[in-house]
């Protein structure tokens, strides 16, 4: 069971929760879980989200595995210049 920290601006999509418990072994499973349990997340995911796993930020590779006990953050998608 993962504890996913939800970054400030995304909290409105998960009923204001700062962290949620999720069963997921990959980023894809995490996203599927979020969409199934929080329909408001769909539009936020479409706009772009990123996931930090143990300090490394993943924007695109949804096959990335999430180790058990990993520190996971859900954030808006970032970009550079």
């Amino acid at each position: 069971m993962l504890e996913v920290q939800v970054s400030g601006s995304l909290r409105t999509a998960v009923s204001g929760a700062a962290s949620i418990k999720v069963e997921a072994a990959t980023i894809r499973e995490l996203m599927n879980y979020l969409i199934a349990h929080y329909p408001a997340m769909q539009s936020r995911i479409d706009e772009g989200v990123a996931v930090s796993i143990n300090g490394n930020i993943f924007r695109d590779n949804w096959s990335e595995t999430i180790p058990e006990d990993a520190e996971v953050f859900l954030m808006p998608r970032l970009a550079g210049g």
Partner: protein
Amino acid sequence: MAEAFDTSYTDQEFKVIGSRERRPDGLDKVTGRARYGADATAPGQLVGLILRSPHAHAKIKKIDTSKAEKLPGVKAVLTSADLPDLTNGNRGNFDILENCMARDRALYDGHAVAAVAAIDMETAKQALKLIKVTYKKLPHVTDVDEAMKDGAPIVHPHIKAADDQSKSTNLVNASTFGHGDTEAGFEQADFIVEESFKTEQTHQGYIEPHACLATVGADGQGELWVTTQGHFTFRSVCADLLGMDIAKLKVTSSEIGGGFGGKTHVWIEPVALALSRKTNLPVKMTMTRDEVFRATGPTASTSMDIKIGATKDGRITAATAHIRYQDGAFPGIWGMLGAMTAFACYDLENVQAVGYDVLVNRPKVAAYRAPSAPMAAFGVESCMDLMAEKVGMTPVDFRLKNAAKEGTKASYGPTYGPIGIGATLEAVKNHPHMRARLGKNQGRGMACGFWFNFGGQTCVDLNISTDGTVNLTVGTVDVGGARASMGMIAAEELGIPYEDIKVTVGDTNSLGHNDTTEGSRGTFSSGMATIFAARNAVEELRARAAQTWDIPLEDVGWEDGQAMPLGVKHNNLHPLSLKEIAKASPRTGGPIAGHNEVVADGAGVSFASHICDVEVDPETGSTKILRYTVVQDAGKAINPDYVEGQMQGAAAQGIGWALNEEYIYGADGRLENPGFLDYRIPVCSDLPMIDTQILEIPNPNHPYGIRGVGETSIVPPLAAIASAVSNAVGVRMTHTPMSPPRILKAVNEAKT
């Protein structure tokens, strides 16, 4: 495919990597042969030109194009009526569409309102004059703080206040990051520093204006030649906006004359394509420098309040930041990014950063090299210096005491893995620059900076010709010389000379999607894909050797560009070189290739520390940079020449931002300095040699340990120079650019 190849750091010894090879496109660029956005022509091409709003905010009541249409030589006139909304509720795409061509309102001085395509420039210019736009001027707002006040003119009425859905607002979002209890933290502090800062708007300032050549046929298929940081992204966006099939729009990236984030978005391209579609002729469109300043994507201007509390032994107990970013006329994430980066360099128990995204009647803000980080760093790093002074520590030691390290919970949330900020600070502390003597009116400053590095979708094709030379086709645009690094990586993996490899950037027909060159991802991503494509090719080369020798594949190794038979039983066999295997390839199975699609991700973060010495003329307020040193962690410098170049170039942009560059708006909301004369970027005589020190702390998420390098060094200069100037004149500077009038004003005000 990507899963078969491990992205973790391999700690190998290199033969080619780390040397200073000559770039393959160098010859074309020094002889004038290289072709940039404006250097393409097509038979029968028309000239496209855009009519722009002279008002900061106005309702567009009517556009009468009849006279323009009748002018001989005019082939098409276009307004938003020719650009129907096909975005299907996607607000982001709709904002892009509206920014490319105003719909019912002009939202900033320079906003496109109509366009023409004509047989030559003279006719096009005349046609623009014949278009009659009836405007109703509306109140405008260009200042970020003014835009947040009650009663400010509203830029987008559909954006409602978070706490009152019936009220329209310019405050798009307030993003909060942090942890702990800052109130309690400030209680524990022996010293408090509290200060407000402002930074004015700047532009990426690339020397090449936007330009493209668009050709759409009667069958709806199209071609676009364009200067861009991401031709695949441009393809998707243009196809979406115009209702074209993505695969049927071929986009070719020209050489790019600078981007720095400003060429990651479309500006004139959808309009050029739409004009070509309307006329069924090629349309060439170039922007004037005036248009580049008024109607592309500068970075934000900001206003911020920073507060830090620390104990007398120099430990920070609490830190807060409220930073207001203007996004221009359309919502963006700039405030959010600023809040995330503000305290990222430090290990803080109690921290809160709030970033505000605010709309104003200015052009739509785009990314500019480590977007939003330089401004936040300006405020935070300046306060760090003020606190160091109170506590009685040197700026470097105070930062070392509070620097983030592995295991620190970052102010933006996640816990850091191994990071380089401590190393860059130690390098600065021990650098000879810190011991150089300072004279009268001279001051020294130092600062740190943080930026994320990103990965992204990347595709690479490697093909081996029968003479053993290799074509490497990459899809990620080369903005500064990465082609050389890609060739070096392929040479390293294949074990053949660098000169045997030809690297090209492929068009969108040649490869799968490649993300834009942003987020310092170019060498990191393309490098990773190249490594795997080369390893792919090596597997095939070994297979051909195995076939030729008629031995099992496991008995074939690859070393120094040769297939080696392994094991005593194959002692009679001589190694086969890549050249020999390639020559035989027609008979052994055909062309030998390696291919890789990878989503390079988990790139890690990047830190830099800078030192700057200045001399300020007390009479004129003019600042001279005496000495500048950049220390940055590159993970692994594939080609040190070009890593140094990124560090020096980013520092130079930061110097301009700190001392001279700003957008000056009049009371009428019009931009008063849209040209290089009055928007003053650093020239050759303004700068000294810029010293660089590359640290190499390997990135565990890349086979060679590569970290992104392009952006981070634009983050420290604003604060490093502000501290240097403040030390030179004895007054803390809080407003960039620190142009001569601002410095004199601050000094005079301090005297009274």
